[in-house]
């Protein structure tokens, strides 16, 4: 675990005069995106990783969401290299246009 040590653990480390091998601030860098109350009328992003069947999985999810929630629109994009993060321009396009994003990492 890389979470910040709690008070009890910090005290035990202090008693033993030990230093922690982690960055205690790292877990605070990450948090889930804010939840949206409803998908109805929202613009969904669908980001694939270019691996076989990722597109099929995303397409199925998109169809299900459109059927059940009447999405406003959909933006479908692929990363260029599956093992690397999406390029900044892809992230920008998704964040500018979409209310939520679904990503598939087929392997």
């Amino acid at each position, binding site marked *: *675990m*890389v979470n910040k*040590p709690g008070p009890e*653990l910090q005290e*035990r*480390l202090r008693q*033993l*005069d*030990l*230093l*922690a*091998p*982690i*960055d205690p*601030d*790292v*877990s605070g*860098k*990450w948090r889930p995106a804010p939840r949206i109350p409803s998908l109805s009328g929202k613009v969904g992003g669908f980001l694939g990783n*270019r*691996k*076989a069947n990722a597109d099929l999985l995303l397409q199925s999810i998109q169809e299900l969401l459109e059927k059940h929630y009447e999405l406003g629109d959909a933006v479908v994009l692929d990363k260029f290299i599956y*093992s*690397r*993060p999406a390029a900044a321009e892809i992230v920008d396009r998704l964040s500018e246009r979409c209310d939520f994003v679904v990503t598939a990492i087929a*392997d």
Partner: protein
Amino acid sequence: MNTLATTDAIELMYETGWTDGLPTVPPTREKVEQFIGYTGRSPDDLIAELPPMGGQATVERIAVNAVMAGCLPEHMPVVIAAIEALIDDRFNLRGVQCSTGIHSPLLIVNGPLARTLNINSSYNCFGQGWRANATIGRAVKLILVNLGGALPGVTNKATFGHPGGYTYCIAENEEASPWDPFHVDLGFAPEDSTVTVFPAEAPHNIMYHAVRPRDFLTVLADSMCTLGNVQMYVMGDTFVILGPEHARMLAEAGWRKRDIRQFLFEHARKPVSLLRRGGPAQGDSRRELLWPRFVDPSDEGQMVPVVRRAEDIHILVAGGPGGPHSVYVPGWGSRMVIRKI
């Protein structure tokens, strides 16, 4: 620290999940300060921000992990240089840390420091028995988990992983090599010390008992281009580590590294038809974009090499003399990085 406190400290590292599963040396403040002092750097100097979680690897935090791994203070420069090399974009550390693949960073040390630190380059160099190999490699792996946050099963999705996940560090056997050392091939001076990092599978042994260089290289090439080898579909760099006997046989017959590289590039190949039958290329023509341009994917008889260019095959010498063995170390599509220590 008394025995009871030491035991408590070891158990505490298990409770927190800060160990790789083996007992660790308690990272006491005094010990960590000794390690930092050896580097001559400030404890807060930032060496890297490590993916996937983005933990900041400062000199102090690297020292904590190095103490835990069982390192000596003089190992610190190698550990720090390795971390600096790992965050080079060509290595794609984020991908290596999170992939379902089996790869783990391999460290190869060249130059006089390898001898000073007694990093094993000879018998059993990939195995147990040498403190420097065991602890330098282990320190890097602890850092990648404790600071990078590559937690097995959580953010590190390796289906299997391999034993190199504990430690994976050797030196080149420069004394047994009939050619220039690896780092000299890449433009460094012989008196430079370097560390190379490479996202590597476990080494695959290539046995060849006879004395015909061309036959040996044919055996080696055949072992490099198996249909299950991910490199056939993702290219990138790949490593061939010749045992001293094989290296000497080749050199005595006049083979230079570039000749070996060219032979392997031309012979470690599989036809498009077979690559389509199995592996990731099946049903995904976009993989073919990674193959060299001279391969026509629509021609099933065309031969696909294991790498895009001959120079992507990296050759060095290691292992103990007297055995008819070499190893092939496949990569996973990204690049090796070499850095001066």
